[in-house]
């Protein structure tokens, strides 16, 4: 059984009497530990798909089953709980709270999980050490470089030990080298058994993942799975020749 299953999912908006199908009958299985990229130009429905995968939004039609639980019709409050426990978000613009320091930013998801102050601090420190920022706990986000900010965001995404990491253009605001480091971090997270979903419009970035899903006009236009094709056993092939 897949960790996250989408069955005939559609998202339909009505704009001035016109029906817009942002997602049109999409079915998709994501397994535990998978490193997958979702690629597509803007307006393709890529963002809508990401919102549904990230439990930020509910589909108009179809089913979403996460860890065996049907969540397509869950209330906003229930979705908030699911996001809190199961999904870690990494955004293009980092989305750290500027008034909080690094440690407080990382503690944020645990506050909403109702975790006590001492444990919160310990876990946040551990997560920050994992992204090699254990020495910047008291800094404000604006005192950090882009790469450091993104690592704080990753620490925040990891701190509730989620099954899924959803990264929306995580390297979009970073230079190539820093971006590669971040991608390497994602690869490691996937190898530890987390499902990492990378949403990007950049085919080069998408090339680092074994599985690539291309969205066009609200449908899955193309899917490549290096594992299924056995390509991942070729030296260097699985990661698009970018394996550092």
């Amino acid at each position, binding site marked *: 059984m897949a960790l996250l299953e989408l069955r005939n999912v559609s998202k339909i908006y009505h704009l001035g009497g016109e029906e817009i199908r942002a997602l049109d009958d999409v079915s998709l299985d994501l397994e535990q530990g998978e490193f997958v990229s979702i690629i597509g130009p803007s307006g393709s429905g890529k963002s809508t798909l990401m919102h549904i995968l990230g439990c930020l939004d509910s589909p108009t039609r179809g089913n979403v089953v*996460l860890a065996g639980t049907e969540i397509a019709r869950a209330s906003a409050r229930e979705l*908030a*709980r699911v996001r809190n*426990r199961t999904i870690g*978000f990494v955004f293009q613009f980092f989305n750290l709270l500027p008034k909080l320091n690094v440690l407080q930013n990382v503690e944020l*998801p645990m506050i*909403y999980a*109702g975790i006590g102050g001492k444990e919160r601090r310990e876990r946040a420190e551990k997560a920050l050490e994992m992204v090699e920022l254990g020495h910047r706990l008291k800094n404000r986000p604006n005192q950090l470089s882009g790469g450091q900010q993104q690592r704080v965001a990753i620490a925040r995404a990891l701190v509730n030990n989620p099954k899924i990491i959803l990264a929306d253009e995580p390297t979009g605001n970073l230079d190539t080298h820093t971006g590669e480091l971040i991608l390497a971090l994602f690869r490691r997270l996937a190898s530890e058994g987390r499902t990492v979903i990378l949403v990007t419009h950049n085919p080069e970035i998408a090339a680092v993942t074994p599985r690539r899903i291309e969205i066009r006009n609200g449908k899955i236009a193309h899917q490549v799975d290096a594992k299924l094709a056995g390509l991942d056993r070729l030296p260097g092939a699985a990661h698009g020749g970018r394996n550092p």
Partner: protein
Amino acid sequence: MSLESPRVPSTELQLTDLPVDKTSLGNAVMVGLKEIWAHKFRSALTMLGIVLGVSSLVAMSAMVQGMENGQREAMLAIGGLEKVRMEAQRVPVEQRHLRDMARGMTLADVEALKAGVPDIEVIAPEMRLELDPTLQANGKYHRTFMTGGILPEKVRIMEHEVEHGRMFNDIDASEARPVCIIGTGIRDELFGRPEDTGAEVVPVGKTMTINGQPFTIIGMFKRYEGEQERKQRLESEAERQRLKSEGKAPPKGPARGQGRSGSFAFWIKNNTVYMPLNTMWHRFQAGLSNAPPEPRLSNIELKVRDFSKIEQTLAKIRNIMMVNHRGIEDFAFRTFEDWSADIDRFVKNARMSGGLIAGISLFVGGIGIMNIMLASISERIREIGIRKAVGAGGLDIFVQILVESTVIAVVGGLLGLAFSRLVVMGIAWVAPTGNNPVITGGAMALAFGFAVVVGLLAGIFPAVKAARMDVIQSLRYD
């Protein structure tokens, strides 16, 4: 929809809501305080309404409390609520044809009441001079209207205290000796104020004439004054001491008649001259050509034992009096219940009107808070989006905004409590009254409670708005 799928493999995916626990509430308070600190000027302006509302509520209540205390003090000074006064009055019109049979109030009435009404704790008759007598002593004249012949019980009922000399005794009374006991007001007029002479003046043993008849002053009551008057007097005394020690000539005392600016009740009490009832009868009335055959009393004052039964007691007294007076109603009752009710009504009205104004100020303060919270959430749409993305539910955001607005109100309320002292001092300085404003804990608690409630109410609408924000749109907002 039901989400309790039996297929859930791990406990991590619990969709039930967690209650807002302590850590998160404490955290929300911290966030609120930080928000206030981050926008100091804006927060200060926002709080101003609450500060003014709370302080005016407390100050208003302090002023009213001061006035009430002053009134009650005065009432107690003349005997309190339990006191009932019977005064001689003219025979009512419908009984006019019987007026020759009216005997007026006499000592026989006093004896009858003493014997017949056990609920009377103390009863004291008084015989007054019909016209205000002229007092003369020390080469000075003074007219007073509080000159009465009494029995010693009167002193108890009026709560007089003899401070110098002695009270007249039975021998003084039975021999109708020309002795009297005076209040400090009489002393001030005839023998000089201690403020002017710099030392206590005790005219005990001196002679004073009342309407030309010489009397020996055998005692003097203590000085009666309200809290405020005492304070002023002690201050001016200290001031004089200081001037003296510096070798300067002390000024000629405070302005004359200053005692009158205080409570009238105390002034009256200080201007008393008492002599034995028998002395009054024999020296001033018995010899007159139109004198009644037996001593006629001007009034009888009595104190009931149990105020809660005053109605029954008064009825009993009235029955006995009516029998004694052969049904002729040449006396009337006066109680202080009316006065007490007046005080209550006045206090209630003052509280209502003052409270209304202060309440409007608090309301306006609440609108200010709501306004600033609305501005604050539209500034923080993205923050709200991020918080929601990492798992904050609508309730969490709701509580956060509500806590922030309440924190503003609480801080404003505390500042208002501190500020209210200044307001009270300012009002007392601008418009001095005989009554010291009294800030009560109850008023402070009430005002503060109101401020908190206003903060909570003002936060509800912005909090609902923030809680309902769409995650995706707030995340995109910049």
